[in-house]
């Protein structure tokens, strides 16, 4: 059998997903054994023009990580879609919008205003902002457009499969690659991880009492966590119940609650809304003042519940009109 051709690309991402591939360590050699890498700008010297020159559907599998922040990201995503038989959204940003997606609480105007004018470390007396087109030495230079809204990959192109995680764990990547090369893939559009929430595989799940009730909510720095006991029951917002499993509970085993990077399960449409619904269901109090007190323990609910998924949530972003008033 001819070797498969694979491509890897990054959009708005931190580089962690690339690291995750490197973290495959010697196993990456198995991949190289089975496949030729035909595009991987982070590691190998390929140019956009190389991809443009490939015939359509030339690439067998294309892994794209990162969210869609700039016009460039969309352009590359569309190009790679045309050139690939299968596109896989790799990592939380590509899958759900990820951490960059939290920028959807602002828009271009407010982000630029802060970053180039108001941030305490900025000195910008002339009030210069990045321009998309600049003339320098008689040459016109072009920068990609910065958009108002960050999107997940499937809000720009059709995606065949998703490998979740921030970053995807070595095991989940390995399993996905095996599934791809053996052709044992589930239904198109599937997320290649568990179909159950993290609790199902969490070693602390069985330590839960019969009923869980919260009388206060703490952030991890406000409590000395008992690592033998379900974090949620200790009043720490663990998003395990609302997050797809498959990560081998790495954060939990590392002593931290789940922050939700594998995203929601198939049956739910909005991870943050689900999280808020479930957390409020287990607050102990019936008295409004006490409820308010516990709710106020959640310092930044959007940031917490939608840490990885705001662009793929029902509302996708903040409604900016009210702010302008």
């Amino acid at each position, binding site marked *: 059998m001819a070797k498969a051709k694979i491509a890897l690309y990054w959009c708005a991402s931190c580089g962690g997903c690339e690291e995750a591939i490197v973290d495959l360590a010697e196993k990456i050699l198995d991949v190289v054994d089975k496949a030729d890498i035909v595009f991987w700008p982070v590691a190998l010297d390929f140019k956009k023009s190389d991809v443009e020159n490939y015939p359509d559907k030339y690439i067998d599998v294309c892994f794209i990580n990162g969210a869609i922040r700039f016009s460039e990201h969309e352009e590359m995503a569309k190009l790679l879609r045309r050139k690939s038989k299968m596109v896989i959204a790799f990592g939380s940003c590509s899958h759900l919008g990820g951490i960059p997606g939290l920028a959807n609480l602002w828009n271009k105007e407010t982000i630029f205003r802060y970053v180039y004018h108001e941030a305490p470390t900025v000195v910008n007396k002339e009030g210069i902002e990045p321009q998309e087109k600049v003339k320098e030495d008689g040459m016109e230079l072009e920068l990609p457009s910065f958009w*108002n809204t960050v999107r997940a990959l499937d809000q720009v192109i059709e995606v065949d499969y998703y490998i979740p995680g921030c970053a995807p764990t070595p095991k989940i990547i390995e399993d996905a690659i095996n599934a791809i090369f053996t052709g044992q893939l589930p239904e198109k559009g599937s997320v290649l991880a568990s179909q159950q929430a993290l609790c199902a595989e969490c070693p602390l799940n069985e330590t839960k009492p019969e009923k869980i009730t919260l009388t206060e909510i703490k952030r991890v720095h406000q409590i000395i966590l008992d690592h033998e006991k379900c974090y949620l029951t200790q009043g720490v917002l663990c998003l395990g119940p609302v997050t797809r499993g498959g990560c081998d509970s790495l954060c939990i085993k590392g002593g931290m609650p789940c922050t939700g990077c594998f995203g929601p399960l198939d049956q739910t449409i909005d991870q943050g*809304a689900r999280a*808020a619904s479930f957390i409020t269901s287990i607050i102990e109090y019936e008295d*409004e003042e006490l409820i308010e007190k516990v709710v106020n323990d959640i310092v930044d609910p959007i940031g917490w519940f939608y840490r990885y998924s705001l662009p793929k949530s029902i509302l*996708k972003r903040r409604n900016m009109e009210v702010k302008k008033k």
Partner: protein
Amino acid sequence: MSEFQPKIVVFACNWCSYAGIDLAGSSRLEYPPNLSVVRVMCSSRVSIEMILKALERGADGVLVTGCHPGDCHYITGNYNTLRRYHLLRKMLEDLGLNGRVRLEWISASEGERFAQVAKEFVEEIKKLGPLIIREEVV
């Protein structure tokens, strides 16, 4: 241009609020036709997803109604609603949707109160104007 007519989705529990809204009907208490009611057995069935979905799909406001605290047909169901509402309100602030969602306790005997709340809420939403959550990509 004709006046903006908001679309408002109302969630009502079967035992108190839905009955109260029915009572507003049988008492012929006029209120604006902007509200449409979704029946659930208990207000605790209403998840935040449902409320956000309504706003996303075109509702300009959402009114959640349930039995008064202590009167819930399902003992404590409406406390879930109350807790959920407190957190949701905080989330909506961050999402720029202040004032779009309201929680009201309407008992089976409070038809008049429902009609009053309906009128008030329609006016409030009219003041806020139409809700268009633009994706504002570009």
